[in-house]
């Protein structure tokens, strides 16, 4: 290994990144843009869901309940209706996303603690809004029980625990503040920080397409020198993002960062090496930039989405997919980011993942060097 060769390639690659504005912009800001886009798209706050209410009870209590659930911006009362058929028509036309049916005797049953006879009908073609309505109604029902009922019964010695007989299922995890992002954003960070791998995958094909590889192969440079020289500049650029992106998460999304930043930075550097080595493997096999990009999406980008456990828990995957996920540096890094951001865990927990990422990086770079022939055809 001649480090002068590596250094020469690195400098050249840096010039390429810095002087080509498009490349510079892409490697610097794509992760940021993608994080913003996905963090918003995936945790979009559902508001103003139109619902209809069919109130068979028609008592003061039931009216108070309807008022309670439609207060605020979450659910909009589209219509008070008088039959199930009307609900059906409104749902079919898409005018409402959900309907609340209050059974006769709602007032009596509730106040006598016998139960809360409610039915929520949702539009199954748009489960997000429908589920939102269900969650919201459940949450408001809890509040309603607290305020309207408990106040009446507490003087009589009824504790709030005994109200569980009311079968009000309350999903306390949901609330309209940013809580889901607390979990999502660190996962997304692990994904967007791997994006420079796409750029690396393109660099070899770029040299092939521009004919510069021909001149490069005519020099005494060793394969590993060339590959390392190509990877390191992107590690450096990637590490700029390792600073920028958590800052964005903390300042913009108000995610709490409970771990040690130096540790995060160090493990991120290992991840960069791992994922960029994976990128260079793609570059070794593909002869054109278009093909390299397509393969990167197939083996780096999409698996980064679906296999790394950001959205779908690893535990729920079939055995074979879990095996495959282990070969993605992003899988281990997702655990690292989540662990450092939220519980703020340290090396005593994260060391196996650090080792895995480093090993994967070495395996990939070795593969790349093995299959990269210093030949044109």
């Amino acid at each position, binding site marked *: 290994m001649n480090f002068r060769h590596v250094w020469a390639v690195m400098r050249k690659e840096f*010039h*390429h990144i810095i002087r080509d504005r498009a490349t510079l912009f892409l490697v610097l800001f794509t992760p940021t843009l993608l994080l913003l886009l996905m963090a918003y798209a995936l945790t979009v706050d559902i508001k103003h869901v139109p619902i209809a209410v069919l109130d068979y009870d028609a008592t003061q209590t039931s009216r108070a309940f309807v008022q309670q659930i439609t207060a605020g911006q979450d659910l909009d009362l589209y219509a008070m209706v008088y039959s199930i058929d009307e609900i059906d028509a409104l749902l079919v036309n898409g005018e409402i996303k959900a309907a609340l049916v209050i059974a006769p005797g709602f007032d009596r049953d509730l106040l006598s603690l016998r139960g809360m006879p409610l039915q929520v009908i949702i539009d199954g073609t748009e489960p997000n809004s429908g589920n939102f309505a269900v969650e919201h109604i459940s949450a408001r029902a809890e509040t309603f029980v607290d305020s309207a009922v408990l106040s009446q019964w507490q003087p009589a010695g009824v504790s709030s625990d005994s109200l569980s007989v009311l079968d009000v299922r309350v999903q306390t995890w949901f609330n309209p503040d940013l809580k889901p992002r607390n979990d999502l954003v660190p996962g997304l960070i692990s994904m967007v920080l791997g994006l420079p791998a796409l750029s690396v995958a393109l660099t070899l094909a770029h040299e092939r397409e521009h*004919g510069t590889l*021909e*001149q490069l192969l*005519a*020099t*005494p440079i060793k394969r590993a020198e060339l590959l390392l020289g190509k990877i390191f500049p992107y590690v450096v650029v990637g590490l700029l993002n390792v600073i920028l992106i958590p800052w964005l998460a903390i300042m913009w999304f108000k995610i709490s960062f409970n771990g040690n930043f130096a540790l995060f930075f160090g493990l991120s550097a290992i991840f960069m090496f791992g994922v960029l080595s994976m990128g260079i493997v793609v570059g070794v096999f593909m002869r054109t930039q278009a093909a390299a990009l397509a393969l990167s999406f197939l083996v780096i980008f999409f698996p980064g989405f679906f296999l790394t456990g950001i959205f779908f828990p690893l535990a729920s995957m079939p055995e074979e997919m879990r095996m495959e996920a282990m070969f993605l540096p992003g899988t281990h890094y997702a655990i690292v980011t989540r662990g450092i951001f939220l519980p703020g865990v340290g090396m005593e927990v994260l060391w196996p993942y650090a080792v895995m990422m480093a090993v994967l990086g070495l395996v990939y770079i070795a593969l790349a060097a093995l299959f990269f022939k210093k030949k044109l*055809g």
Partner: protein
Amino acid sequence: MNEKIVEIEGLTRIFKKTRAVDGLHLIIETGELFGLVGPDGAGKTTTLRLLAGLLNISEGTAALMGFDLNNQPDSIKPYVGYMAQQFSLYGELSALENLLFFAELFDVSSKDLEERTERLLEFAGLLPFKNRRAAHLSGGMQKKLALACTLIHEPEILLLDEPTTGVDPVSRREFWNILTELHLRGTTIIVSTPYMDEADRCSRVGLMYAGKLIECDTPHNIRKKIDSEIIEVWPVNWQKALDKVMELENIKEVQTYGETLHILVDSGERQLPEIKRSLKKAGIEVRSIRVAPVHMEQAFISLIRRIDA
């Protein structure tokens, strides 16, 4: 001198089913300026890439400075300067940065670096443009920069693949002046070219056709090989004259060149009056008719026609 610096035996490269280079035998001695000529697709580029170690050899052997390309393709690289046919430098780097990049890859010592880059930039006439990005240089300047990059490690052997294609005549002349200077200093040069006037400037020429080396000799001897003289006719009506000339007896071959016809005959002096007479009898007017010297181009076309026939 007179050492065998390049030894090629049965060199063959097969792409799928095409034998791009087919059983090449060639020995080149130190200090030669060897021209590789031939039509497009003859196998010139493939031959040079094989010699530069950029392609695997399918059959046969080739050795440069005693290093076998089959076994030690990397050992020859420090001694060889290879210049690809298309522009293959880094457009976003300046002329100087390109030179420095290749200097470092070729392990030019840092103490020689400044002196050598300066000298090469001057040699190539690029000193005023050393900080300009390579992409913004003219075609001729790019070629000269590429040559400077292949010279940065002072190679023993230069492999140049059509270095003057797409370059204006003035730059072409300058480029060849540089090559001649290198040749005089003793560098072995193998250069491919589609231009016959360039072939004439080589010390020896190899004629490639369909992957094979069909002739290999000095330009003088190649011209003699066709064993003919040339009568050049510039008729008023080209087509009519061509039809008539084709009917003449005692002529070997007719080549067309623009508005003129080149008639290959055994003896120009003897047959010129004969041909003049025949054309006059057929009522064909000529603007001029004369015995002309044989050029590489005519020899080249004639030799290829013989192979095809």
